């Protein structure tokens, strides 16, 4: 599977949700823990050798499971093979807890679930579906053109809810 590596490398340079030097051990048997700069950016976890600018690798965090291992340590594995674990060592259980919570929230699927949760809550409160924004950016006065770079597209006054929202119906 090809992928746009350059863009992903550029993403690794973006401001991170969390970043720290942790001990990291790959899933292969007999792998040794090494110090890595670990950086969480959107739904990717990048890891670098501590003094290098280019990431060694990235983990897409969709459908991952984050679990406490020994105190101060956690693991990430993926649903298709939960026994294959990436291990991380933190300097304290507190730091470990922080990372685990951040990683659990760091996926599109998690946000989708939040969306569903809020929609249901609103429905229950108001007895009707939320006036799901045609586009939340609309009210911030950001024009459709600027937002979507749709310079040539005619302005569509009757936009349907975004497909991401529509898919939840």
């Amino acid at each position, binding site marked *: *599977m*090809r*992928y*746009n*590596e*350059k*863009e*992903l*490398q*550029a*993403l690794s340079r*973006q*401001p991170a*949700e*969390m*970043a*720290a030097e942790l001990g990291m051990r790959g899933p292969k048997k007999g792998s040794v823990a090494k110090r890595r700069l670990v950086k969480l*950016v*959107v*739904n*990717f976890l990048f890891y670098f050798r501590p003094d290098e600018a280019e*990431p*060694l*690798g*990235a*983990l*897409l965090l*969709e*459908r991952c499971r984050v679990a406490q291992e020994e105190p101060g340590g956690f693991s990430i594995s*993926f*649903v*298709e093979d939960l026994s294959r674990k990436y291990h991380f060592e933190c300097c304290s259980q507190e730091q470990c*807890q*922080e990372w685990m*919570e951040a990683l659990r*929230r760091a996926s*599109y*699927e998690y946000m*989708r679930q*939040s*969306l569903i949760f*809020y*929609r249901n*809550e*609103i429905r*229950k*409160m*108001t007895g009707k579906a*939320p*006036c*799901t924004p045609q586009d*939340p950016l609309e009210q911030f006065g950001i024009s459709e053109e600027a937002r*979507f*770079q*749709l310079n040539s*597209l005619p302005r569509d006054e009757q936009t349907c809810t*975004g*497909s*991401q929202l529509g*898919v939840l119906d």
Partner: protein
Amino acid sequence: MKLNKRSVAHYALSDSPADHTGFLRTWGGPGTPPTPSGAGRRYWFVLKGNLLFSFESKESRAPLSLVVLEGCTVELAEAPVPEEFAFAIRFDAPGVRPHLLAADGQVAQEAWVKALSRASFGYMRLVVRELESQLQDARQSLALHRCVFQKSVTGCNKPQAPDRRAPGPENGHLFPRDRNSNGSVEERGSRPVGRDLTEWGLQGPASLLLSRGQSPVSPETSCFSTLHDWYGKEITELRRGWQQRAKGSQPESKQQSRP
């Protein structure tokens, strides 16, 4: 650079909802040989979140390619041949050529451009916060109608961290308690803090709880224990964050804004 490709491919094929799918013609991608007619190759594309996958066909069991869409802009494009309905995915990254794609018709083209433009993590977060804010408003108007919540602030719903008075630079807004030691719920209730809280970067039900000091005791809210656990988790982690900030042991990156 390594990538957990097996997991990525598994995610592509999984039953997680696709935000958009359809056939598109592509000229792009490294390693794609040009077709003799220059008409582009037609593949099945699946958009999930900020990831665009392509497959040889609808039935393929392995993705051909992945385009990570963070940081991209989408615009209409001139196709190599007098082809209509083309658009390009452009990145800021140096040395990266735009990905050229073409739909089968204008409706499909518009739908794709819209879907791809909204495919960033940040956008989704915005939508979640918007709904969060609406839920807050719904709660408030419900409270006003019922005159129930004015008195129902319980101690446990207020954050206990004593260092709340020393917010980091990203916390542009102070709690009412900082002005008035009473911290009555009436005071909080009168202020629309929804937007301010989102500026703080608070996510999830915690921000609702903090702004209203309300307990979700409402006959309409089923599964209260689930809600309570959900809120509780967020409160705990926020408390930890405040305590850490107070100790000054915060890792530097926490102060950075999200992309």
